[in-house]
């Protein structure tokens, strides 16, 4: 059967890291691959050590509520800031929440991360748009769509709006038609999508 290539690794107790010795007789490309893998391993190891005994990742369900609660708290304070029209503050808080959601340990269900991040990115896009930071809003709204393409009509609208504001009408039209296809014309925000699409079409016809 297949043979196994043993790599000589060193465990450094002081730094708690596994590493490759300097004088290993591998080719440069191999060394790079092993080093990259070891880096991932060390990152995962830190996450494993942080777990409760017996130090194995729990099954994906049920979810640990601690982090979710923290994220919800951050999002709520960001929402309040947004409502008070303190947009830079809101962006900062949303960014904290996003960082926290994205640094969830990998073994937690991906569906949860997607759901959470779709909302957070969408909200941050809104806060960016309120400050007329269209490119930032566009990127965030796109992330939101990517995280959750269906049932996310607001994010579709935001992408269209940002593109239209930057006078990229063709792209805006593409996104809006796609959004309408996915969300359906009868959906909650469908009317707004149609209205924005009509505006974009009007501009396109004029030029």
């Amino acid at each position, binding site marked *: *059967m297949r043979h196994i290539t043993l790599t000589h690794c060193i465990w450094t107790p002081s730094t708690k890291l596994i590493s490759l010795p300097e004088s290993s007789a591998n080719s440069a490309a191999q060394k790079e691959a*092993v080093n990259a893998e070891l880096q991932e391993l060390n990152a995962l190891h830190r996450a*494993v050590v942080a777990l409760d005994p017996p130090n*194995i990742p729990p099954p994906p369900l049920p979810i640990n509520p601690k982090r979710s609660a923290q994220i919800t708290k951050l999002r709520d304070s960001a929402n309040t800031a947004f409502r008070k029209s303190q947009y830079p503050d809101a962006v900062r808080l949303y960014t904290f929440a996003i960082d926290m959601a994205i640094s969830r340990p990998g073994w937690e269900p*991906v569906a949860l991360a997607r759901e959470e991040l779709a909302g957070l990115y969408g909200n941050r896009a809104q806060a960016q748009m309120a400050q007329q930071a269209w490119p930032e809003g566009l990127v965030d709204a796109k992330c939101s769509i990517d995280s959750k393409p269906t049932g996310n009509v607001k994010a579709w609208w935001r992408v269209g709006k940002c593109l239209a504001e930057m006078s990229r009408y063709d792209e805006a039209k593409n996104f809006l038609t796609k959004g309408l296809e996915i969300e359906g014309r009868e959906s909650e925000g469908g009317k707004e999508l149609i209205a924005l699409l009509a505006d974009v079409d009007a501009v396109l016809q004029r030029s």
Partner: protein
Amino acid sequence: MVDWLSLAVPLAYLGILIGSLATFSSLYRKRKAQKAFSLEPWFPAHLQRDIYFSLLHIDPSSQNEKKSPAIPESIFKAALLRRAAEDIRRVLTLRSQKQALSTLLQRGSVGDDLWQRFLRAEKEMEEEVKDVVSEANAYVPGWGQTIFQSANEMTNNHIYRQRMNEQQGKLAEERAWWDKKKTSIKESFMKELDEGSETKAAESTPAQSAPAAPASVSDDEAVLVEAENSGNSNVGSPKAQKKKGKGKK
């Protein structure tokens, strides 16, 4: 009495027949085994598994030497998780390839070699998965049932994070594009404004200079200055009128 001479011919016949068959079959089998062994593996080297085993192998040597302290068990668990994640990826790849490959094989588009390689990879992955499960159960009883679930989420999360990072990475580009676009829009807008004001100025100068010219015949120099002023900017015109008034007095 047995006639050995007359039996010798059929015995020799049988002997030669069986002997040649045996040689042929052993040669054939040897060759086949060699061929199977020399088949290229389906996947590249399983780095995560290699590292896992490498880690397992450091342990006894370091204990013998009593120099470096033993590696904590958590790192083995982490390495095993990495290994399981890679296994999941491979199993999924195999599963998605199987359908297409068998269709191609039926049509005769691909050789038997490829199919043999595939089957071998499949079998190997089966063994690999079983091995991971039993290893996991050895660390914590019952972990074997959930390790692949966790590993699956890990791979999916990894893919998702990567995509998000990619998307966010485009921000600088978008920003730069927009800044450029914005300045160009602003410039063209300002140009339009300038053009607008220039035409206004051009319209207003003759209207002002027409009455000014006959009024200030006495001092020609003042009129020249006024005309320049009003040509440069609109702001100049009320001043000019004021001056005109002074000039009259």
